[in-house]
């Protein structure tokens, strides 16, 4: 008896929602980052679940790509956060709003 696909999707949705809330409500840049990672992984879980359902490997391959891109993104994102921290001595993203119109 296979685990029904709905379980995976519900879990993925819960993870995505938690990640979204973390991104939206937390001012700290690092926590936002963690929220973003959570969202990415929720999506990865969805991909893998569908891949398993269809018995194809495409989804899993895409999940790997996604992880690699996420790792690269973390490198760039952390570098930016460090640069901002050096300049403003804070990780509060609301303080870094000089690009407003």
């Amino acid at each position: 008896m296979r685990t029904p696909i709905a379980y995976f999707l519900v879990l993925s949705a819960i993870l995505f929602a938690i990640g979204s809330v973390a991104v939206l409500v937390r001012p700290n840049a690092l926590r936002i980052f963690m929220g973003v990672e959570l969202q990415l992984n929720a999506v990865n879980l969805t991909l893998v679940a569908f891949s398993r359902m269809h018995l194809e490997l495409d989804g899993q391959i895409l999940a790997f790509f996604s992880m690699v891109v996420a790792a690269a993104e973390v490198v760039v994102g952390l570098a930016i956060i460090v640069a901002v921290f050096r300049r403003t001595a804070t990780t509060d993203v609301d303080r870094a709003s000089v690009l407003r119109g």
Partner: protein
Amino acid sequence: MIDVIWLAVALPLVASGANMLAGKRFGGRGAGHRSGWVATAAMTASFVVALGALLQLLSLPAEERTQVVTVAEWIRAGAVSVSFDLRVDPLSITMALVVTGVGSLIHLYAIGYMEHDARPWRFFGYTNLFCAFMLALVLADDFLLLYLGWEGVGLCSYLLIGFWSDRPEAASAAKKAFITTRIGDVALMLGLFVMFMHFGSFEFDTVLGHEGALPEIATGTATAISLLLLGGAVGKSAQLPLHVWLPDAMAGPTPVSALIHAATMVTAGVYLVVRSHALFEVSEVALTVVAIVGISGALYGGLASIGQYDMKRALAYSTMSQLGFMFLAAGLGFYPIAIALLVAHAFYKALLFLASGNVMHGLDDEIDVRRLGGLRLDMPWTAALFAAGALSLSGLPPFSGFFTKDAILEVASHDGVVWAYVLGSLAALVSAWYIARLFFQAFMGERRYQGHAHEAPALMRIPLVVLAAGGLFAGIVLAFTPEGRLATFLEPTLGHIEEGHAGPSTATLIAISVAVTLAGIGIAWRLYRPANEARWTSFPEREPGMSAVLGRAFYVDALYGFVVGTIGLRAGEALSRFDRTVVDGAVNGIGRLTTWASGLAPVWQSGRARRYALSFLAGGAALLLFMVVRI
């Protein structure tokens, strides 16, 4: 010479260009400045060309005396093709001879008159340009080229009235002339539009019909075109109600008054009516309107002239009156007599203007008759020449006015047009009155001016002698009877005058006309003889009622001033308020709205990462929702 008739137009044009571009370098001082001689030579050469064309025309049989010379193609646009055609026929060559002949004499005179001017080349450049346009007007074979000349002479009139542009009254008179005649020009232009809509052509032969055939056109359309053409003629020829510019135009140099505002340009209106008489004849109404405009102009101008103390203004109103006679003749269908009067008038009115120019030249620009008087003592030549002009104008036999102006009355009486005869005789009485008055006031009695008036130099007398000869005897030579030489010559173009046999006999009419003229002169003598000097030299202090009305020319100027200056200004102010509040309000309101709305946009672009994230999320959710709903 007919083949090279374009030279008549080209020569003044070239001389004008030379004078305007390089006249300053022609050299010479005062009357010796070569720009004036260049201009006069060009005009004389043009006259010779026209004279040659006349002689060649006379050698042809009467029915072949309409020659069209194509100079160049002018406009080609779709079905419209207008070529630069010049028409040599008895009417156009008569006009061309007047323009070039009187024009040459006035140019010659102007050399002397403008000797003290700082920039004579500019003056002669303009006058030559004027003559070129005027010749294009009279020699044109289609209405479009005629219109080109028409506007061109208007422009030159503007430039020359305002020639002394440092005088405010000259500058404003120039503007007044230009704008007032423009009102008429718009009517003329509309007339040409209607004409083109109907005929699809501007050519005389198409529009006016040829070889006696009347144009094929409904009466109503003919009336519309004719009245619009008449509107243009009224503006150009200073007839009621567009006459107000002519007296003010006297602010220009006197040769200009003689050339443009007496002999040539103002007669363009008469020429236009006479030229398009076929259209006017189809519409009986238009012809009657022409006659009414004419007789009212003749009376109004004559009466207004009586009240003027400025000699040139008096002569300007007299010109209006004489043009009125020409319109009357044209309106009654006596086209050859209208042209005969036009020719004679060109001579004697140019003479009168130039004689008054001599007075101004000799007396430091004094022109008010109250401060003249006794000029015959210091300026016998000028006095004699002015008297010759006055005699010609007043209509005493055997001088020109009698054979032309009184011919109109005679034919009118024979045709049984009693109102024209009676009112015309009244206008003739007034004519003799005003011109005799000027002579008595300015030249008779004792000197009322300071200093010594010096007689004009020979250069300014010789052209006048020629003009005087023309003025005195043009009538007897050209128009001894209403069917005289000029009328016979013009017959191929203007047709034959059918004289009726109503009313009193010719001899009685002549006696009446002489009596009327003598009565006019008698009234003038009674009122203005030197013994009565005190009654009118002190008018500024106590101007009696009637004289004030005449002097202000029945307050027409004041009426226009009130309509335009007061009512027009008020309406303009009201419209301006409307513009500022409603129109500008709407425009500025839209501007303010845009500014306010664009102020809202930055709220969106807050620079806060989490709001952007929320936007992402909301957008993504909306997209998903949309896809779900669509499926």
